[in-house]
């Protein structure tokens, strides 16, 4: 970190823990550097912030804000790990499970899935209060190396931002409004686009669920040995504090 940046540093608190931030940093960026994990789904390191999933909602000065887009402010008191906030986050994650077709037992991303891992972290084990919407969504396996199972898409938009900003392609984009909003490709199907399996948007780290599938690598790592089978989501950030 540059010396000039350090000079403009200021402090604020997250759950009573003093955190240092620098001008222009969001609450989440400062928290990540300080080893305080704020749950998130649509935000991803290296991509511009979107603030749409609201799983990262924290209370700053008594107001609910998205930690991934809200700038940190000097002296701010942020609440993160509270019973109330975690319940709201759990409800959000639960609703995402209900809005798509998230069948963990048949999903090759199971164990690497951030939605599933977030459900584990937030203890999503109570009997559901919502109906399963079970939408009929398309599966696009036209590309020789990539498949899209949009049943699992949670509209986080990470593929859109990765394709536009990192790959410079714009393969993915939103279509529709409200509950009908979907991620679509800029062609008749994926094979008609210039998407390549080497694109950042297609890499395993970008799609948090099992929507973007790289063919022929699905079960290279067996279930039980995958990323979130080894530990909770966010633990690599929390370990910075230890």
């Amino acid at each position: 970190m540059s010396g000039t940046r350090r000079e403009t540093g200021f402090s604020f608190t997250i759950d009573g823990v003093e955190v240092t931030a620098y001008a222009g940093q969001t609450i989440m960026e400062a928290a990540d550097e300080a080893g305080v994990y704020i749950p998130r789904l649509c935000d991803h390191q290296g991509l511009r912030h979107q603030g749409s999933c609201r799983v990262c909602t924290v209370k700053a000065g008594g107001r609910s804000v998205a930690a991934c887009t809200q700038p940190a402010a000097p002296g701010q008191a942020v609440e993160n790990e509270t019973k109330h906030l975690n319940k709201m986050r759990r409800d959000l994650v639960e609703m995402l499970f209900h809005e798509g077709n998230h069948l963990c037992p048949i999903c090759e991303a199971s164990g690497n899935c951030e939605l599933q891992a977030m459900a584990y972290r937030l203890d999503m084990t109570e009997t559901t209060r919502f109906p399963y919407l079970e939408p009929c969504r398309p599966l696009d396996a036209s590309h020789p190396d990539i498949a899209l199972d949009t049943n699992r898409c949670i509209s986080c938009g990470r593929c859109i931002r990765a394709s536009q900003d990192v790959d410079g392609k714009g393969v993915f984009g939103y279509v529709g409004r409200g509950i009908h909003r979907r991620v679509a490709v800029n062609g008749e199907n994926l094979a008609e686009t210039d998407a390549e399996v080497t694109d950042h948007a297609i890499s395993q780290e970008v799609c948090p669920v099992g929507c973007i599938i790289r063919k022929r690598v699905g079960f290279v790592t067996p279930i039980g040995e995958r990323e979130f089978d080894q530990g909770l989501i966010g633990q690599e950030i929390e370990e910075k504090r230890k």
Partner: protein
Amino acid sequence: MSELPKARIATASLAGCFGCHMAILDIDERLLELMKLVDVDRSPLTDKKRFTQRCDIGIIEGGCCNEENVHVLHDFRRNCDVLIALGQCAIMGGLPAMRNAIMHSDAPLRECLDEAFVTGRYIRNTTHNVPNDPALPLLLDEVYPCSQVVEIDYQIPGCAPGGDIIFDTLSKLLTGKFRGFEREMIRFD
């Protein structure tokens, strides 16, 4: 100190693969410990087809795909103080619920049955009909998770849940010590 009276449990398999009942057997030798706490009433494990008396705990595997499943589930709710949904099929429909969302189909159930009995590439069905014997339970339009049919008290996630989480949950419920799951035991797959 006098021993506690034994609790009664019942189990049933609805629309599922019976894997969750097999997972109950994964409790292994601890089953002996569990059997000190419970008597098993209506269950495929005892082959009892009806409740002989009211039960403390009912354990349901699988979701509801036909009318018989709904009857069995209502019967369990009536006869059990606590009802547990065991595994992903009971919790959210699981694999059988894949027939609910067959894309581009206005009648997913019809398409599913036609594929299974008439049009499927490897089907050898000389009648070219979908089985329709009156003895067969009427299929529901969709596969429903148990919680959409009756009230469920607890659910044990997993496909199938491991023997450890089943044993841990049951033994804690039976001794009044259940305070939720250990986080590292929770698996949806």
